[in-house]
């Protein structure tokens, strides 16, 4: 696992830090401060380069996001961009409308889901690289046993009933344990969100503090367990289903 590097710029986008941002319109070159619509020629404007999902939604790089706030902003931007409203406009405007909406929808899908949200934040900070998928170290032993039980039950068609029942019962306990672990990691993630947000909101410099970096690394570790735990839960469920 790579260490978190200081690659981030200012955490706040042009929306909410009071700075007035202007942009030249692609069509009439008028400098306007309405980011998505030219006040001079009424043409739709594409998302600014070098802005990210967080800035589009008018939030900093924070992780505890109020779903209602997110939804409201999504609806309001959808009303600005949606291709339905550009059917009678020029091909250029239609193309921007389509591209903006596609990107907006992707952004909403990402930010709505807490895990996708962290993964996205990580990709902003560390660059686009696939997250590792690994087993939680504290569960190594359990997982090893679960694999053995799963294999045993596949081969156990000829075994006696009692042994089979015992195996199934153990697997049921395993399932509960894995689920409990998953829930626990989710709770931890929520706590980390809050801790991250507190630090991020009070950040004075352009760089992350060591504490923030530690939080990011912790969240990254939890994310890397997600796929693994999901797969084990699925495998156990499938076996239990088959042996009902």
């Amino acid at each position, binding site marked *: 696992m790579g260490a978190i590097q200081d690659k981030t710029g200012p955490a706040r986008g042009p929306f909410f830090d009071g700075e007035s941002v202007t942009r030249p319109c692609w069509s009439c070159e008028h400098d306007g401060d309405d980011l998505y619509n030219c006040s001079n020629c009424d043409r739709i404007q594409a998302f600014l380069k070098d802005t990210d999902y967080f800035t589009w939604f008018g939030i900093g790089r924070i992780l505890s996001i109020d779903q209602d706030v997110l*939804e409201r902003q999504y*609806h309001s931007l*959808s*009303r600005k961009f*949606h*291709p*339905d*409203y550009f*059917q*009678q406009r020029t091909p250029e405007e239609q193309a921007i409308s*389509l*591209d903006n*909406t*596609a*990107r907006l*929808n*992707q952004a*909403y*899908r990402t930010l709505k889901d807490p895990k996708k949200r962290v993964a996205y934040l990580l990709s902003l900070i560390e660059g686009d690289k696939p997250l590792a998928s690994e087993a939680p170290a504290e569960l190594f032993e359990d997982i090893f046993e679960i694999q053995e039980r799963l294999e045993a039950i596949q081969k156990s068609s000829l075994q006696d009933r009692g042994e089979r029942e015992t195996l199934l019962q153990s697997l049921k306990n395993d399932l509960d344990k894995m689920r409990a672990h998953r829930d626990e990691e989710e709770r931890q993630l929520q706590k980390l969100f809050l801790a991250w947000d507190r630090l991020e909101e009070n950040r004075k410099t352009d760089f992350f503090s060591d504490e923030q970096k530690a939080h990011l690394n912790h969240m990254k570790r939890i994310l890397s367990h997600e796929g693994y735990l999901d797969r084990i839960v699925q495998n156990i469920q499938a076996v239990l289903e088959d042996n009902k």
Partner: protein
Amino acid sequence: MATVVGIDLGTTNSLVAYMNGDTPEVIRGENGRSTLPSIVAFDREGHPDKTLVGELAKNKLIAESDRTIYSVKRFMGKGREDLQDADFEQVPFKLVGGEKEALRIQIDQQLYTPSEISAYILRALKQRAEAHLGETVTQAVITVPAYFNDSQRQATKDAGRLAGLDVLRIVNEPTAASLAYGLQKAKQGIIAVYDLGGGTFDISILKIKEGIFEVLSTHGDTRLGGDDFDQRIVTRIREDILSQFQIDLFEIPALRQEARLVAEQVKWTLSSQAKTEIVLSLPNEKGTYRSEITRKAFEASVQDLVDRTTAPCLQALADAGLKPEAVTEVVLVGGSTRMPFVQQTVENLFHKTPHSELDPDEVVALGAAIQANILSGGISDLLLLDVTPLSLGLETMGGVVSKIIPRNSTIPTSGKEMFSTFVDGQQSVSMHIVQGERELVEDCRSLAKFNLTGIDPMPAGMPRIEVTFLIDADGILSVKAKDLRSGRAQSVEVTPTYGLSDAETEAMISASMEHAKEDMEKRQLIEARNEAETVIRHTEKALKQGADLVDEEECAAILAAIAEVKDALTREDRKTIRERLNRIGEVTQSLAEKLMSRSVKEALQNKRLSDI
């Protein structure tokens, strides 16, 4: 602004609607019915002008079963591999299609794609709308089942183009229905739309908030509908007739078709009555088959079909992250939801009495009309945010699917993927796109193969090509590629797996344009003929009335001009008819003026007389 119409292109029936002021309205046919049976009958002599659509075609179902096409929607955008052998046996017309080829329907020596057949239906709806609105209709919104895949959507769009319609949007049927209900009620909340039509089943879960209709999830079965219920009754009739009369109705196409129509009727009757009688007269005076059927027995025979709608409903709820109790309203759409048994199943599933205030046959077309109005700049406070029903993926090593866009993503949406080369100097890379939820390529539906060409020769792994997959608001995929080193767009060749290539579609469209031109020529000829006959009649009458007003020379000229027109009418030459009609106008001008002034004088004299 020209009206944009909303069209429900259904398996059994099709409808067209428009916004009349701020109310959506279905346009009725001359027979007063809102539904147009989705049936096309081809003429036995192969006369293209005599192709029948709708009720007229329905009358041919029995007598001309091999050339009367129904339920063509079931074959839209499909290939041989999408069907089972039973599908080929189930229809009395001939379906053909080789491996990896779009299915076609064979009438004599002519092959028609399902899109071409659908275009006949769309053209009839277009004409119906034009007659009602008194204007040319060129733009439309067409609905499709939410669970239609990319090829089926593309095939529907092609059908529109073939019919001379600019298809502004492909809208999902349940979503359209929710618009029609939403407009009526302007509610907030979670709506489940249960849409069981003639051939397809859809379930969509929507969240309505401040005019935004956001589809949270959708699921369905594009091979389940009323047709299948009819088939169960047909099976029963077949078995009975086989044992009682030793006749296999599947061997007599006309009888089989008749059995299907009787079954449909029986199904309808059983929605309001507890029992009915199946009556079918057998050919060659072999007697009449009669059998009583109760609603209970019918319901038992279709139980498994109705049960098949349950799993998609539960899946859609799970995908939306909701429990059935979270649903505030349930809306029924599609003719098959008239069955009490279906209504009961839905009620049990969602623990709510479903809505059916709007005619389940009309509600989709009404919603399409609303969407058409939004697109033409009318209503601006409603906005539909729909989703793609199936995940989009790429084939990777070992035939495993790598998902790029997950199902239930709000559309339009895009996904990006980086590509490079494996060998030094490699100049092209091919990709295989599939749609579906399974892990392996062989379990998903192949959509298309894309070929990236013209890559600059470089050591392996050096080229960096970014490929963007875009699903537009119609739910249709397009692919763009960019070479990140040079920044220039990379060409992408697309070979659809079953659908038609762009070239094939273009060829069909230009052929249909030629037909359209021929059709227009024919219409203009008929109009010219009608006008000529009227003018001749009027001129002859005028000549009698004003015999005293013309001299011999003038009279001869007029008679000659009439004879010329009559001569032109013996040939199919619109231009000559028109020219000679103009000639009549010229030679009768003086007579017309004289007649006019005489009638004015008479009128004035009459008036004076009456004044006295």
